[in-house]
């Protein structure tokens, strides 16, 4: 049976491709974890870098990463959630919504280096914020906004219309309905978007490098410059300062990404069950 052989070959090939993809993923993660984890120690996590990161740890870099990420989600979350509410609850079909939606998609597609150029020209220089946590946080919040909006909107859509109708029929206003009935139902959607946004913020390099700077000092105020782990990894990798520190930093980033993805999966899995 010629047809049967062809069919077997076809599915065999597809299976092979999928296996290779999985293999590549395991190779990348395994390669970095195997070489990096032995170099992660308590000192590495709690010490300051010395000699530009050649020696010492990455404590200020970890704090800097958390700080920048925190600022970006604090700014982006309320705006993103509100925007999603607008799209799903308030917007009437028409030109305005189409335009807003189009530009939200455009924002999602803009390359990170363009965000970096803009953040540098606008926040760092034009608004005079300098290289700082706040410049980077604002730039990043623009980058993660579309992710947040999309994820929140998807989960808002899953809330049954009858909930809204019931609430409105009981005399609640539209806002009360949104606040007390609709939003509580889609907490996990918002949370998933938030976690994915955090993942993107932590992993971003080009935009952060141009807006946060690269200081190795522990940041105190939001106007201090700092360095995130991704930028630190870039510096270590391109300068070849120390292989151990490079692999250790990369491994730490991978571990964080693994945690974030597992969390997001767990929560969206719960969402699917609801």
């Amino acid at each position, binding site marked *: 049976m010629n047809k049967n052989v*062809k*069919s077997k070959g076809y599915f065999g090939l*597809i*299976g092979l*491709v*999928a296996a*290779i*993809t*999985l293999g590549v*993923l395991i190779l*990348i*993660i395994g*390669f*970095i974890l195997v070489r990096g984890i032995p170099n992660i120690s308590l000192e590495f996590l709690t010490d300051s870098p010395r000699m530009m990161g050649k020696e010492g740890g990455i404590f200020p870099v970890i704090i800097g990463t958390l700080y920048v990420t925190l600022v970006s989600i604090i700014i982006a979350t309320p*705006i*993103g959630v*509100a*925007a999603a509410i*607008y799209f799903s609850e*308030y*917007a009437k079909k028409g030109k305005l919504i189409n*335009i*807003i939606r*189009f*530009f*939200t*998609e*455009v924002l*999602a*597609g*803009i*390359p*990170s*280096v*363009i*965000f*970096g*150029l*803009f953040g540098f*020209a606008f926040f760092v220089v*034009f608004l005079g914020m300098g290289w700082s946590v706040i410049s980077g946080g604002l730039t990043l919040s*623009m980058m993660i906004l579309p992710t947040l909006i999309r994820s929140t909107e998807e989960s808002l859509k899953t809330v049954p219309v009858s909930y809204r109708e019931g609430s409105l029929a009981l005399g609640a206003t*539209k*806002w009360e309905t949104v606040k007390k009935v609709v939003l509580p139902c889609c907490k996990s959607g918002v949370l998933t978007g938030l976690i994915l946004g955090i993942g993107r913020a*932590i*992993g*971003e*390099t080009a935009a952060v*490098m*141009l807006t946060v700077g690269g200081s190795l000092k522990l940041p105190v105020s939001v106007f201090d410059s700092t360095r995130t782990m991704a930028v630190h*990894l*870039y510096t270590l*990798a391109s300068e070849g300062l120390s292989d151990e520190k*490079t692999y250790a930093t*990369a491994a730490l*980033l991978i571990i964080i*990404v693994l945690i974030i*993805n597992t969390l997001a*999966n767990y929560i969206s*899995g719960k969402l699917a069950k609801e």
Partner: protein
Amino acid sequence: MKTREKAIEKIILICAAVSTLAVALITIFIFSSGFPVLKSYGVFNFIFGENWRPTGGQYGILPLIAGTLGVTLGALIIGIPTGLGCAVFLAEMLKKRSARLFKAAIELLAGIPSVVYGFFGLAVIVPVIREYILPLVQKINPDASSSGFSVLAGAIILAIMILPTIVSISENSISAVPREFREASLALGADKRETITKVILPAAKSGIFSSIILAMGRAIGETMAVLLITGNMAQIPGSPLDSAATLTGTIAMEMSYATPEHQSALFAIGIILFVIIVILNSIAQAIMRKFGGMTA
């Protein structure tokens, strides 16, 4: 009460408009910063000039465009068949439970930061190309030489990076093909392979096309991974083993330069990139809207 509701609606509308405002701001700043060079140097000379020597006042970005196109094309050549294979595997061959796991793995691929990909490329792919692939090529063409920093290295890494985009959107649109299509095809005596290649994939083509276009946008826009592994040589690459500079890499690398004209030229590259990406995204959106199907 009424005024409060009205006010809240206004606030929410403003929040929704923030992304539009952001795009507007970005456009204004990038265009106004890059425009001077485009004007004085001429758009045609800028795009088709073959020499990128900013310190000598030559701002031809053709080599950078060629570099970006080279790595992007290479990434698509590797990434499209692989991505489609994975999408079909995911949608048609796996049971629900294992499909979830496989999907999580693909999403993980999307979550890995680009600088980690760049580091992996630098530590593994660049030396592999230099030590294993180059000798193979030299058997056919003894004159071939490569430092490993190459279009090929960039293409391989980018292919991995764009896989999640291709897989997830394609898989969505494959899954969205109605059951009746499959059943009718199978009832007519077609086997599973024929059903997939002749019925399901054609029915899902709008989603697949838009996934490819979005993936292309991602490949063109990627910066850090490419910066670390393509060698940043502002010259039109003659073969996949040649080094190349990309639009994004050049911006990230040379932003530190002082002369206002050079900086303006980098912003002008930003304009070109921005325009390319907006066009690609608009096409992808138009395809998806026209043929329905899943959104990204």
